[in-house]
């Protein structure tokens, strides 16, 4: 800012420049006056002005170059500048050129008009007249002098001096000298007594004198005094020379001088005519050139100043157009352009403000969206949204947990396209697709299917989405895996049944048994043998059945009771080995046991877990009818970023029928002739109480079981059954 302040205002600079140019031109003009003292500086002034012109030319050239470069680069405001400068130059140049042309014409004609043949001749005639007049006077003086010589014939030196004095006074001469033939002064007389030495003729005069015997000429004594010098021969015995100096009358001398001056001046002017024209043309051209160049340069500077705000505005507009809204164009003047600039600044400020607000709003929306997305991602319910064509738009993390498919990798695809890749999910996906296409309102449906973790049950709720105009824009499906919930409900119901059975059935059983025994005890003696036997049989049947019922109710209460009584860290592979050891003695059964490296620890109740293994092994043995292969393995697996210990148990028995698959873990579901149907239910209950899961593996069969023998009834035999148990592993040491 400080240098800006120190810089003189442009107007002042231009004014000073103009003043300098004018002064220089004025000085040059003054110098052309002959009398001027500046005359001696004329050459320098001419040089200075020429240099000034060169400097101005350089400035203008530099400006034109810069402008051309800017115009080529299509810089802001350059085209307007070019147009304005061109207009100015044309406007300034045209009248200047016309004036210049006519000035030159007038100048040349004016100078030429000074000279013409008449004046030329008149001048020469005037000079000749003067010369003739003086010539006549000279001849007259010559004759007069010749007459005077007669009086000097053969006089002595002394007489001659006196005679000369006398003659001089008579003739009106200013000086009279008598020379000897050798040029020695014999006598002399002067009007000025002080002049001791008379003026002596030079060699040139002596030569002429010896040739002609006489000599007459005009002799300038001083610069403005003329004398007529006459020398004649005195024809005496000894020839002598008389030199007489006659003064030219002042009037005649002045006139002659005046004529000569005019003639010389005219001659000089005539000689200098062309130089004069050239000189004036040069001065005029220089003046015009300097003025024009200065004007063009100032035009450049002024136009640049005028264009500057426009340029800034264009730059600002370009910046705003490219998204930079924080533009501020400095207001340079309080004129129309200044008003425009102020309006522009106000506009950009408003745009910037609006832009900021929009940005803030979008950030807010984005935050909101991210927040919702986070919530959605962390929901336990799976959420999939669809567009108008039922193509997937978004899917959350829970959708993956439920379906075990990265649904969000299939954005833009139809659910039916997923079916091709994931055939095991064909049923639920098709159901959802069908419901989506059919439903016009909110719908809810339970969909059960057999997933990789066994049977799964989903509770799906679909909502079609509508735009504000009522157009259908897609749909959202929310689904929960309610398998565990339903299982829990079932378990609770069965527990309740068991509790009631224990309470309602077991209580009357003891009086029934006691009453029957009492009946037998009281009546056996009183009845006949046949009746007594019947009574005893009946009573035994009652007691046996009551015992059976008691056992059944006990089993129930066992099922209803919580199994995880005490918690220890158990190495599952050793536990399985311990349990298997009890069955190894069985002939006809081959046990194959595999386990992973290290200790496979879980937290749980060893008694309950042993029961689980016993139940499963017993089931397997029963299924294979104590003849075949049972394969057990214990491994560590990772699922959903958690460690599990997985126990798999396969047999090569007849397998589980599809219709039983869904309900095999429910109480009182059995395929065996004997059995309560509580074995697998208890197993499932224990496993679930330990935080684990059990399901029937339908994907893998034992190698021996692959060879499916198709019996006549079309029933699959020796398909083999497999169970998978997963228990949460505790931290390994």
């Amino acid at each position, binding site marked *: 800012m400080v240098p800006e302040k120190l810089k003189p205002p442009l107007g002042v600079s231009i004014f000073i420049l103009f003043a300098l140019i004018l002064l220089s031109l004025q000085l040059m003009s003054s110098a052309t006056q*002959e009398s001027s003292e500046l005359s001696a500086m004329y050459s320098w002034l001419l040089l200075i002005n020429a240099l000034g012109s060169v400097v101005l030319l350089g400035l203008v050239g530099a400006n034109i170059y810069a402008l051309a470069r800017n115009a080529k680069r299509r810089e802001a405001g350059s085209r307007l500048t070019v147009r304005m400068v061109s207009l100015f130059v044309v406007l300034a140049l045209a009248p200047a050129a016309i004036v210049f042309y006519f000035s030159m014409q007038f100048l040349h004609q004016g100078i030429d008009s000074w000279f013409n043949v008449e004046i030329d001749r008149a001048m020469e005639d005037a000079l000749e007249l003067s010369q003739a007049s003086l010539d006549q006077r000279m001849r007259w003086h010559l004759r007069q002098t010749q007459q005077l010589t007669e009086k000097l014939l053969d006089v002595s030196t002394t007489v001659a001096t006196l005679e000369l004095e006398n003659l001089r006074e008579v003739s009106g001469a200013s000086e009279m000298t008598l020379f000897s033939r050798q040029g020695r002064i014999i006598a002399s007389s002067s009007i000025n007594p002080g002049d001791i030495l008379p003026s002596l003729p030079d060699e*040139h005069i002596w030569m002429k004198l010896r040739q002609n015997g006489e000599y007459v000429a005009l002799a*300038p004594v001083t610069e403005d005094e003329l004398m007529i010098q006459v020398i004649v021969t005195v024809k005496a015995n000894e020839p002598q020379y008389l030199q007489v100096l006659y003064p030219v009358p002042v009037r005649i001398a002045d006139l002659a001088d005046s004529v000569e001056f005019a003639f010389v001046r005219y001659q000089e002017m005539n000689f*200098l005519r062309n*130089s004069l024209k050239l000189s004036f043309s040069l001065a005029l051209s220089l003046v015009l050139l300097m003025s024009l160049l200065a004007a063009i340069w100032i035009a450049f500077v002024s136009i640049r100043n005028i264009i500057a705000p426009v340029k800034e505005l264009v730059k600002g507009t370009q910046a705003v157009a490219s998204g930079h809204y924080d533009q501020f164009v400095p207001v340079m003047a309080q004129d129309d352009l200044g008003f425009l600039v102020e309006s522009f600044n106000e506009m950009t400020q408003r745009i910037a403000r609006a832009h900021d607000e929009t940005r803030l709003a979008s950030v807010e929306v984005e935050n909101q969206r991210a927040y919702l997305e986070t919530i959605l991602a962390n929901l336990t319910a799976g959420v999939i949204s669809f567009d108008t064509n039922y193509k997937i738009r978004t899917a959350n993390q829970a959708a993956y947990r439920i379906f075990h498919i990265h649904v969000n990798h299939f954005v833009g695809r139809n659910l039916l396209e997923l079916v091709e890749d994931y055939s095991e999910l064909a049923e639920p996906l098709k159901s959802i697709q069908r419901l989506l296409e059919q439903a016009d309102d909110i719908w809810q449906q339970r969909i059960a299917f057999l997933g990789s973790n066994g049977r799964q049950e989903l509770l799906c709720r679909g909502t079609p989405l509508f735009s504000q105009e009522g157009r259908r824009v897609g749909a959202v499906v929310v689904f929960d895996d309610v398998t565990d919930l339903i299982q829990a409900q079932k378990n609770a119901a069965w527990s309740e049944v068991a509790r009631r059975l224990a309470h309602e059935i077991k209580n009357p059983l003891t009086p029934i048994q006691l009453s029957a025994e009492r009946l037998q005890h009281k009546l056996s003696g009183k009845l006949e043998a046949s009746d007594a036997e019947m009574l005893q049989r009946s009573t035994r049947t009652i007691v046996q059945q009551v015992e059976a019922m008691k056992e059944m109710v006990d089993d129930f209460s066992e099922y209803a009771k919580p199994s995880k009584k005490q918690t220890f860290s158990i190495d599952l592979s050793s536990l399985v080995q311990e349990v298997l050891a009890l069955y190894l003695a069985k002939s006809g059964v081959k046990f194959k046991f595999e386990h992973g490296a290290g200790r496979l620890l879980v937290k749980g109740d060893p008694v309950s877990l042993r029961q689980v293994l016993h139940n499963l092994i017993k089931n397997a043995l029963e299924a294979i009818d104590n003849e075949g292969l049972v394969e057990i393995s214990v491994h560590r697996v990772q699922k959903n970023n958690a460690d599990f210990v997985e126990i798999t148990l396969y047999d090569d028995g007849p397998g589980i029928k599809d219709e039983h698959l869904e309900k095999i873990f429910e109480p009182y579901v059995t395929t065996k002739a004997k059995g309560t149907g509580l074995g697998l239910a208890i197993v499932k209950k224990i496993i679930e109480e330990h935080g684990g899961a059990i399901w029937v593996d339908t994907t893998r069969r034992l190698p021996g079981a692959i060879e499916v023998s198709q019996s006549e009834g079309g029933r699959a035999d020796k398909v083999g059954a497999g169970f998978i148990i997963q228990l949460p592993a505790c931290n390994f040491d």
Partner: protein
Amino acid sequence: MLCCLFALPKTVVADEFGFAVKNAEMTLQGDHYVLNAEFDFALSMRAREALQNGIPLYWVMQVKVLQHRDLLWNKSLVERSIRYKIQYHALLNMYRVRNELTEQVTNFSTLTSALDEISSLHNFTVIAQSELDQTNRYLAAVQVKLDRDALPLPLRPIAFVNPQWYLSSPWFVWSLKN
């Protein structure tokens, strides 16, 4: 400057016109050095024409004594000049020469005799002997030049560009023995 000073005078024969210093010498007269020099004046056609049309011409005879210095440029001790004016008088058909130093005016009926008059310079006192010492080397330089700035104004720009007006002689430099 130095090379200009030591440049040999141009021979008049080679050019049709131009002034030249034919020879010059400085001699000790009493306790002063005096200059005796001879010049050659050959006027160009243009200059002669101008003179005959009444335009006075001025020329300056310049003499200077320089002290030679090895490392720096030569130091000028004294610089003297005589300015002459020559003008044609149409009325008397005479050439008038005026020595502006002595204000002495001489008239000549021909241009040649007028130029002859000024073409030799005798006993022109330049510098006192006391101003020069024995240890230094001294140079004397003489030049005769046409004073173009004294020409009439319209002629001056032309005189600067037309070689017809380039009449000045180069410097005639010689070593001064003291």
